[in-house]
């Protein structure tokens, strides 16, 4: 393996550069995926059948918590990648761990939120609106869940193998993924929750 030392470690080999470009393209596809979900949501938002409307079920407190947790986690993973660039493995691991804990907390609040919806009678089967809402949130939440496992695997690998071009590459790609989920959440927050509560 040829390592190019003029580049940051995660870009250091040809394969690494391929991986990063490939992942950006994958994110392009993910943007389409969420764009389609949003389209479905906006189309079905007012089609509540005999079920509740957005304004009746949304609660601002848990949503603010979720937003706070996810935004912070995006910040801490940024710090993690920065530490990685400086070659400080332990600092990096700490920040990645914090990130995942914040993600876990986010998921906890989201599960609470889903239970709330269930209790107020906004289930998956209630109406087109609830189905679209829960599918959009669920897809995002599913991504976060997958991210928690993925991030854990990466932490274990960095711990065991140290910062190599390979582990650095994986960590960097994971950080792109995590930032992406944050961006999607900002859209969810603004165009689903805030809009729905107005």
């Amino acid at each position: 393996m040829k390592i190019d030392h003029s580049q940051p470690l995660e870009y250091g080999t040809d394969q690494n550069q391929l991986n990063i470009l490939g992942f950006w393209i994958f994110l392009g596809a993910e943007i389409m995926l969420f764009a389609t979900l949003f389209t479905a949501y906006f189309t079905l938002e007012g089609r509540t059948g005999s079920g509740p409307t957005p304004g009746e079920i949304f609660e601002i407190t848990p949503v603010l918590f979720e937003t706070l947790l996810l935004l912070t986690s995006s910040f801490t993973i940024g710090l993690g990648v920065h530490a990685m660039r400086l070659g400080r493995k332990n600092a990096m691991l700490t920040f990645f761990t914090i990130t995942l804990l914040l993600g876990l907390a986010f998921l906890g609040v989201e599960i609470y939120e889903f239970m709330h919806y269930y209790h107020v009678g906004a289930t998956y089967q209630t109406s087109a609106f609830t189905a679209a809402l829960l599918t959009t949130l669920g897809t995002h939440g599913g991504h976060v869940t997958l991210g928690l496992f993925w991030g854990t695997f990466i932490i274990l690998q960095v711990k065991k193998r140290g910062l190599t071009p390979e582990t650095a590459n994986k960590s960097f790609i994971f950080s792109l993924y995590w930032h992406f989920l944050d961006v999607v959440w900002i859209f969810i927050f603004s165009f689903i929750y805030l809009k729905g509560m107005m």
Partner: protein
Amino acid sequence: MEFFERFAIPHPSPAIYASMVAIGLVSIGIIVGLTYFKKWGYLWREWLTTVDHKKIGIMYLFSAILMLFRGGADAIMMRAQLSTPDAKLLDAQHYNEIFTTHGVVMIIFMAMPFIFAFMNLVVPLQIGARDVAFPRLNALSFWLFFAGAMLFNISFVIGGSPDAGWTSYFPLAGNDFSESVGTNYYMIAIQISGIGSLMTGINMMTTILKMRAPGMTLMKMPMFTWSAFIANVIIVFAFPVLTVALLMGTTDRLFGTNFFTTTNGGMDMLWANFFWIWGHPEVYILILPAFGLYSEIISTFSSRNLYGYKSMVASMVLISLLSFLVWTHHFFTMGQGALTNSIFSITTMAIAVPTGVKIFNWLFTLWKGKIRFTVPMLYSVGFIPLFTIGGVTGVMLAMSAADYQYHNTMFLVAHFHNTIIPGVVFAMLAGLTYYWPKFFGFMLNERIGKWGFWLLTVGFVLAFFPMYITGLDGQARRMYTYSEATGFGPLNLVAFFGAALMAIAFLTIVYNIYYSFKNSPRNIGSDPWDARSLEWATHTPVPEYNFARVPQVASSEAFWDMKKKGHQLFKGDFKKIHMPNNSGVPFIMGMIFFLAGFSFVFALWIPAVISLIGIFVCMALRSFEKDHGRYISIEEIEETESKLGGAK
């Protein structure tokens, strides 16, 4: 007993029972044969675990041919049923199932793998690369396609075929009207292979952007690579839409959600929109690589460089953009306003312009060229007028007011077969004949090939042109029979003979493969057609590493310039070559996806969860795995190269 009842076929017929027996016998035959000839190890090492783009391409190729016959059998049954008024060969339900599976199999499981076959076989060679960017992912893409295809294909013997048309419009495709599990198969099988297609899109885009040989700027890429690139961009943007639509359709059917229902706020037109936002670009995913193949073939056999390279590229980019802006032309009559119809009518017609540019470029390439009428060239030359007719009838359909007359008639069926058969199927057969020697080391027989071409063309014209007339006279599509009084009888009989002729043509083509395998000479050299682009610059058969030395490119026809102007393609000494290791994981994941899909179709939750965990474990293992591939040493390269004849 109740448990097993769900696997029963809802509408059995003797033909289905016969197929069941045939499937059983063939499977047993394969297993016994492999065991008897001790080929399991070979199969596993050389094919099931391969990550070599050439072998993956060959697997796509054979799957596509297999599916062509499945879809063709459906087509023949439909044409036989319609060949005379009031025929009793099939009943209405059976006919519904057959046109549905015919459409899906042909588009998703025949045409798609066919284009993926050529992308895999040709793109890395044309850009002077050793493999695709992610060889393992590539293998996984193939196995996901294969799992999806097999899942879809067993529907008619286990649980029932889908019967709501290949467009699966709701509420027809909902539980109320499609009671069997058929539509579950539709949703899930297409989902699985769709994920594979998306990954191919990402893989190929990365490959083409990053792995071109030194000197090959974007505007020096051969035309097929360009077309593959654009098609993959469309894949990456279009397939996620399908993913979401299928997901929603699946939950509607399995979990009682209300996305596309007509109650509780559901909206059936949302499905139609999503389906066609994917579906229209999909036809360009298929046709652009076909155009790419025609470009290669026409310039090779005109002994002339392609006329208007830049306008070819520009027109493809334009087509790819427009393809996302026309989707509602598929439902002009479903109650959107006049303004919407007008807008989509105009954008649809606009696509004719860049397409026309391409047609003229091919004609100008032929003009003044020294034409050799080989089999690939016959298909390419035959394509031009036939496809133009299909295009003109497309513009007729694009006039939304007039569409109220043709909508859902045989006129439409004639139109899209008129574009897709000369456009895609001819291109695939041309490409098959053209590239066959590169990958298999012998030429296909020209004489039998020409028979195949003429039978197919005559059969095609007979099969589809009558439908324009009966369509304008009002013969509806998707109708299993018609009365004598309509007068559609004679023309439909002609169409049946046409279809039969096409079937004979396909058999001829397969016979040609068998015949040539037995009889064709093997020492054909690496460039039997006197071709122009880089894929012909390496040995035949292509060694595992494609090129012993990375080529130095200076034009879009690097190989031609090497032959005619003495341009040096290969400079310097051999260096050791890095290659990926084989892996069984993609194949295993494909099998698990199949099991997961099957479990979801029948709502068997425990195996479904277990297989999902299995998929997850495979991904986790992959994450932890340390596999840096291996190196081919200089001695090994020298040995291979001298065996294949001279240093290249």
